[in-house]
């Protein structure tokens, strides 16, 4: 019941070493505009993948939870425009924001407690759309359509947060920690019960576990992950607007999870990198007026070729899954 096999650890360390040395190799835009952006949206996608891979829940509320953290940190931010009466230090605002997302995640879990499959999808979608519309129409807290701007983040080591290397390393560190956290948690009794719920919820209950409490805890943890991503996304976007949490944003993060593959947490980040690359460069490669068509076709191609995303594709191409499946890795649903 170890987290990863030895070869996994070696590979992970290798990938991490490459990522850590990226600032030496890549120009600034690639650092923050591609890799950094992939990491922070990948964190939100990770919260989807965590719920889907280990709990069997597809939640569309994760971008909303990221938004709750984003709005919380924006409302409390000392630099925010419009300035808030409740401004505090960033070092207090950030944990409060993540806490808010965690609690909101638990509430989502509570609301969706008895739903599965398409009904869970619908109820989380309704929550996401509802919150986005609320943020758009609420002026007092959320400043409506224009949102809250100039949320620049704290200074780190005397450097502004938006400094490319600072932003990149913070995102990388947090993404790596959350990734390991997911791998750890799914090996704990809590994580095992969660996977039991995925495979057979009635049997889990028969064994004496409280399924409802485990579901709520899983959504709270997913809220925690999404909240961490939401804070970084808000700093990256120098603020937050209802558009940051609207339908398009929600679908984008879902697309990242799906094209990466819902079978393993690493899929979230692979999907995020692919999405970011295509989103950034499609207009350069293809007709500017119709590049969305290209984006759509690429995603459609990936999903048709491999319903379990790029991960599944790799698995099938190498035949690696078959041999390894008995030991660990993800379970397709």
């Amino acid at each position, binding site marked *: *019941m170890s987290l990863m096999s030895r070869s996994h650890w070696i590979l992970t360390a290798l990938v991490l070493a490459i990522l850590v040395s990226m600032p030496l190799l890549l120009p600034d835009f690639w650092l923050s505009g591609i890799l950094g952006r992939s990491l922070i949206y990948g964190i939100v996608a990770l919260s989807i993948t965590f719920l889907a891979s280990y709990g069997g829940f597809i939640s569309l509320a994760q971008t909303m939870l990221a938004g709750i953290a984003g709005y919380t940190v924006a409302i409390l931010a000392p630099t925010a425009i419009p300035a808030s009466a409740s401004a505090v230090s960033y070092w207090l605002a950030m944990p409060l924001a993540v806490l808010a997302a965690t609690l909101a995640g638990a509430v989502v879990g509570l609301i969706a407690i008895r739903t599965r499959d398409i009904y869970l999808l619908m109820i989380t979608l309704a929550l996401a759309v509802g919150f986005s519309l609320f943020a758009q129409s609420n002026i007092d807290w959320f400043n409506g359509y224009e949102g809250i701007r100039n949320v620049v983040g704290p200074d780190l080591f005397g450097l502004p947060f938006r400094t490319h290397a600072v932003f990149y390393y913070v995102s990388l560190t947090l993404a790596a920690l959350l990734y390991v956290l997911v791998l750890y948690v799914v090996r704990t009794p809590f994580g*095992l*019960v969660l*996977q*039991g719920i*995925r*495979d057979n919820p009635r049997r*889990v209950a028969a064994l004496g576990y409280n399924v409802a409490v485990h579901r709520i805890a899983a959504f709270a943890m997913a809220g925690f992950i999404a909240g961490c991503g939401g804070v970084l996304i808000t700093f990256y976007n120098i603020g937050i607007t209802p558009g940051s949490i609207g339908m398009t944003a929600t679908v984008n993060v879902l697309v990242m999870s799906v094209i990466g593959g819902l079978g393993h947490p690493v899929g979230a980040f692979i999907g995020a990198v692919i999405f970011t690359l295509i989103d950034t460069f499609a207009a350069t490669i293809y007709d500017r007026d119709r590049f969305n068509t290209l984006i759509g076709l690429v995603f459609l191609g990936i999903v048709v070729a491999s319903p379990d995303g790029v991960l599944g594709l790799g698995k099938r191409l190498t035949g690696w899954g078959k041999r390894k499946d008995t030991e660990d890795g993800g*379970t397709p649903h």
Partner: protein
Amino acid sequence: MLDTTTRKGRTEAPGPKASMTPALVTENVARSFGALKAVSNVSITIAPGERRAILGPNGAGKTTLFNTICGDHPPTAGRILLFGEDITHLQPHRRARLGIGRTYQSSLLFDGLSVLENLYLAVRGAMPGRLSLWKAGHDDPALAKARRLAEQVRVDTIAQARIQSLSHGQRRQVEVGMALASDPRLLMLDEPAAGLSAAERPELVKLIRDLPRELTLILIEHDMDVALPNSDKVTVMKDGEVVVDSTPDRIADDPLVQAIYLGGEH
């Protein structure tokens, strides 16, 4: 009917009180689903440490009787006593904690988890502090117990394999292991040999035979070769009612049983 005296010498009773009282008593138990009477007027008494086989054609109400006992479908009439305690109206998990363990006809394991993880979950489910965010250490007693169970049901060599890669027979073994995880006083096995190949059966028979003798066992089984060598007494059901109560050596000659089994039921 009771055969407690012959057992007493060999049995280490679970408790002083239990040795005096029957392990399980059903008094006129009935269960209907709407107009359908799946089980009616079933009264059986099973002594501590006894091994009881329940035979009968499909639709005889055997599994429904199990469900009334474990609480998945509580009886609509009658009483159920477990070691003298009335459990007729208890929730399934309360009954499990009082010492009932069971397997299901169709496999209800966690396909995405390993054998050891399945057993570990079953062990922890019967322990306090079930929601934990700390990974099991090597000295975790629940993990140690899961390993012992794996040995007991002979799946210790494939403990790390995921359930979905297991053969049918291996899954059955894990099922028995999970039912044993809560240290039940009464273990109910629902057709453990169903669907097993001829090569897999002896392994399962041996496994059942090697279960601790103090464990009270009820076994639903079609296969006489599995059922008879493993039972002290045999109950035959048909159309929701008990039709014969007998011993294994006499059951094969019973005309009614012959009628049921030779009449094409299998």
